[in-house]
């Protein structure tokens, strides 16, 4: 366990070094939040929908922005993919840890380190905004606790999906195509493009059977009380089942990949 924790610490320190990058990221998050607020406001001026009201929607939007680096599909810097391409993966294979979990933790700590720097300012900013556009307090303490649990499990789900995609690129040696296709479809089905309650019912019923909505849609809706505690608890159970399935697939793929891996470079 110790090497994992120390890796997390070092990753956090690296993140703190790049303050400008963090600031630029912050500005982007503010701006996109405001932009979404504008667009959705325009729609709500014309009509309202029964699946989600504007107050809940604004919570959804701002939480998505605040925890963006936790729940997004691809983070910019893709160290592991580079390692596969340039052959440095050989060093990783020599390390005395399970490679799957090592990379898993690497991804996870990168996400939390990036989020650690950004989420607080975005949340504060969103709280301070004028009335209909602001982030409100969670509906109840129970909902807030469930929100935190669901968000954490959601991060585990997205990382285990990323692990699968990444392992596939072991076979193809190119990641761009498959990653961008998965992230485009995934962003739609997980409510990053527009909140899931605003999608047509047909799509919603499809998402019920996929792990994507459990990444961030569940937690964001629990926070604002758009879905009840009971349904939330059930979904958290579902999250755990999905984590087991996805990790099992990922580990299996990794096993096959490592048997076939050829090291690039000389």
């Amino acid at each position: 366990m110790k090497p994992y924790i120390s890796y997390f610490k070092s990753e956090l320190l690296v993140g703190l070094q790049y303050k400008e990058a963090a600031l630029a990221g912050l500005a982007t998050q503010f701006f996109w939040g405001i932009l979404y607020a504008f667009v959705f406001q325009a729609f709500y001026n014309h009509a309202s929908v029964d699946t989600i009201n504007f107050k809940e929607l604004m919570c959804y939007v701002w939480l998505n922005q605040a925890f963006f680096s936790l729940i997004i599909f691809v983070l910019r810097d893709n160290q592991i993919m580079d390692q596969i391409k340039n052959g440095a993966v050989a060093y990783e294979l020599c390390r005395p840890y399970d490679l799957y979990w090592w990379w898993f933790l690497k991804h996870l700590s990168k996400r939390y380190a990036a989020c650690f720097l950004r989420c607080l300012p975005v949340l504060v900013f969103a709280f301070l905004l004028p009335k209909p556009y602001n982030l409100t307090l969670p509906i109840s303490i129970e909902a807030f606790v469930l929100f935190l649990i669901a968000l954490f499990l959601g991060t585990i789900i997205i990382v285990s999906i990323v692990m699968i995609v990444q392992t596939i690129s072991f076979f193809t040696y190119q990641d761009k195509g498959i990653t961008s296709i998965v992230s485009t479809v995934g962003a739609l089905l997980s409510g990053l493009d527009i909140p899931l309650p605003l999608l047509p019912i047909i799509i919603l019923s499809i998402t019920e059977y996929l792990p994507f909505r459990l990444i961030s849609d569940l937690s964001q809706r629990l926070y604002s009380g758009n879905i009840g505690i009971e349904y939330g608890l059930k979904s958290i159970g579902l999250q755990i089942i999905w984590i087991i399935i996805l990790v099992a697939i990922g580990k299996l793929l990794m096993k096959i990949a490592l048997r076939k891996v050829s090291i690039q470079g000389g």
Partner: protein
Amino acid sequence: MKLFLNYLSLHLKISLEYKSSFIMTIISQTLAMFVELFTVYALFLKFKLLDIYNSYELLLGFSTLWLGFSLIELFARGFDHFSHIIINGNFDILLIRPANLFIQICGTDICYEKIGRVLVSLFIFIYSSIKIISHFTFYKLLLLVLMVIGCMVVIFSIFIIGATICFVTIQGLEAVNIITNGTRQVCQYPMGIYKKAVRVFFTIFIPVTLVNYYPIDYLTGRTDNILYVFMPILTIIMFFISKFIFNFGLRKYCSTGS
């Protein structure tokens, strides 16, 4: 112009070297556009706005914007990646060559991956305009062409202004990305859904409404005012302003090379 054609063929050769990666990227890029179109459509469906807005008008506005955007991304990607040219000092090389600077900057990166978006949005553009226009006249055809050109001019101007900022900051700014992608995000919906202030902003500062909102009124026959046909030409003002700003920045430019 011959120079630019030369650039085009060179970059085509580069792209075709990595065929499978190239095709995958085209597919995923086009898919991303479809997802955007889908979300626009889904929102209109959800808020029952399709009774008020004709869905072909929605498609036409959307495809005009994306067509102009993808064409500029295809040909003028160099301006989008201007910070790279500045950081590694290559900009100095461009400056001493006896050729048009703008063409050279465009020529540093021709992004053929956008070709899928261009073709698909062109198809939607033609399809929806056929559905909207009951009988074609010379002016309506002219307007369709001007809409696309005008849209390209607007996006190109934003790119130029973004590149100018790099003279000062050296580093590329995410802020520029916010402006380009943010504009696309807002303007891919019919501008009619927004409050007047938003429309005014996108008429005066970033004149997108001149190419994908007001002219549609003329195409549908809601107005006969001939001035609507020449509206997209006004975007040229933004181009001159941005070119002026660029040249101003160029004079202040200090090399980063060694």
